[in-house]
Each structure stands twice: as C-alpha cells, then as structure tokens.
C-alpha cells in the first residue's frame, strides 16, 4: 500500500486482502478476507439455527431458557415485519428475518475482530440487487402494465412521457442508494476503528470499547433496521395496486 497518502504509519489496515488465488474460467479471482469473514458469520448463524432446531424438537408449553430467547427473536422480527407490511407480511417474513439476522451479525462482527462482510461493496450490492428484483417481480405480478406505465409517467398524464426518464433513473437509484448507505456506514466505522488502533495504538487501552459500542453495535443495528425497513416499504409499495386500495 505505498500509494496511500494516509498510510505513513504501516499498521493501519482496513483494506480487503487477497488471500488465496482461484482460477475461475480462465481468470484469476481471489478468496479475500471478506469471504472468510462472511463464512464465519454464516457458520455462527447456521450453528445457532441447528441448535435452535434440535432444542425446539421437544419444546415445552411454558418456554424456558433457550426456547425463550428463540421465541423472543422470532416474535420481535415477526412484529416488525407485520407492522410495516400488513397483509403481505406472511409471504416476506422469512426473507426479511433472514437478511435482518445476517446483516446484524455481519455489522457487529467488527467487535470480534473480523472485518465486517458488509464493509465490502460486493455483499451490500448483492443484497440490494435481491431487493431490486423483489420490487420488480412483485410489481409485474400485482400491477397491470397500464398502471406501471402511468406510474412511470407519474406527474404528467400517460400520453406525455417526458418525465419517464427521470422516474426510471430514480428507480434504478434505489439499489445503488440502498447498498451504498449500508456499505458506507459500516466502512466508516471500520476506517475509524482502524485509525484509532493504528495511529493511537500505544494509548488505545480500553476506551476504544466506547467507539466499538457506537460504530459496531448502535450504528450497525440502526443500519440493519433501515435496510430491512426500506426493503419492506418498497416491496409493500410494489405489491399494492391502486385497484385494491
């Protein structure tokens, strides 16, 4: 990293490192440290899921201990989804809960010394593209072509599509702004923590915990909530046709 201005001290490190080269149809791509971190996060979530599955096989009427925790998580997520999506909630609660748990675990993995997988633009762009596809597919499913065309020409009447390019650009901007918001928030936390540990490493004793609580826990949780909330809002909007309302 000789090109970076900031890195006059060598121990500042928040970059993505290429670890293992892999030959992929003739091009060399790399297994990076964000792949490793994403695998660790996924293993933790999978482990929790397997344990919960085994434990809930003999679930009791009156919840106790671990069963309580699982029920609390499921209830909270279900309440959040049904509060925003209304009658569409049962169809999307699984997906929204999945990305909520995944993004939350990714964001707070910075506490455990990993590089958060959401601080890699690839991860957040993939999540945002899934949201975009959900919006498009649900729009095509629930709204007629005439209605979609009227919405595209929105402030002007449908026979005068002067405004259409601007509306199309604003719909393409949805996944970009969703992904950049999550990415930049997590990345800013990662950069600031790297600067604290790199430049102030001889006085960085115990007090960076406060910064971890803010940048990893608080900011990570808020951004997770925002991402899921916006996904739910967009999908609900796409599902709702003006004819049923």
């Amino acid at each position, binding site marked *: 990293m000789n090109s970076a*201005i900031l890195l006059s001290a060598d121990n500042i490190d928040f970059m993505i490192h290429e670890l293992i080269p892999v030959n992929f149809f003739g091009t060399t791509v790399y297994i990076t440290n964000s792949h490793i971190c994403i695998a660790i996060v996924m293993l933790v979530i999978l482990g929790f899921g397997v344990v919960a599955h085994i434990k809930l096989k003999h679930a009791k009427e009156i919840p106790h201990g671990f069963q309580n925790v699982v029920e609390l998580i499921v209830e909270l997520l279900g309440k959040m989804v049904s509060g925003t999506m209304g009658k569409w909630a049962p169809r999307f609660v699984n997906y929204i809960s999945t990305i909520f748990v995944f993004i939350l675990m990714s964001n707070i993995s910075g506490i455990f010394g990993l590089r958060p997988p959401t601080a890699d633009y690839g991860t957040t762009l993939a999540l945002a593209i899934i949201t975009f596809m959900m919006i498009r597919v649900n729009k095509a499913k629930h709204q007629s072509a005439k209605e979609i065309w009227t919405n595209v020409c929105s402030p002007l009447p449908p026979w005068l599509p002067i405004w259409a390019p601007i509306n199309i650009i604003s719909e393409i901007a949805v996944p970009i702004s969703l992904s950049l918001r999550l990415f*930049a928030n997590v990345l800013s936390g990662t*950069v600031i923590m790297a600067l604290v540990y790199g430049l102030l490493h001889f006085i960085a004793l115990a007090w960076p915990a406060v910064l971890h609580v803010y940048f990893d826990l608080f900011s990570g949780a808020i951004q997770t*909530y925002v991402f899921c909330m916006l996904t739910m809002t967009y999908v609900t909007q796409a599902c709702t046709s003006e004819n049923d309302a």
Partner: protein
Amino acid sequence: MLLDITGSDLIRACSAIGAGLAVIAGIGPGVGQGIAAGHGASAVGRNPGAQGQIMSTMLLGQAVAETTGLYGLVVALLLLFVHPLD
C-alpha cells in the same frame, strides 16, 4: 530544489485536497439530523406517551438523511486510496 514535483505527486496532493473538500458534504446531514432531532424532541414534549414510536421514526429518518454525507465520505475515500494514474 523546491519545485521538484512530479505529475503523480501533484495528483496525490490534489486528491488529498479534493478528499478534504468532499467531506464538507457532512454539513448537510448534520443540519438535517439536527432538525429531525429537534422536531422529535418537541413531539415527545407534546405527546410523551408515544416516545418509543417517535424515537424509532426519528432514527430511521436520520439514518436515511445521513446517506448524502456518506456519499461524500465514499468519494473522499476513493480519492485517497484509489490511484488509477500512478
């Protein structure tokens, strides 16, 4: 010699200045979040019972308003760490 500056040095210096200018974008979200927090406080004052809902709405709006400032941050980081001409 004072003026022993190569082209890539000049580019680096200018991108550092540009990165500094790019994070001025933080002013906008600061003002916006302040307005949201002020209105949230007055809403809680008028209706203390709805504090939880006001709080979550306010935080959601603030997090969305923060995005434009973060675009500035992304531009600054790109200017600092990506040097295509070196």
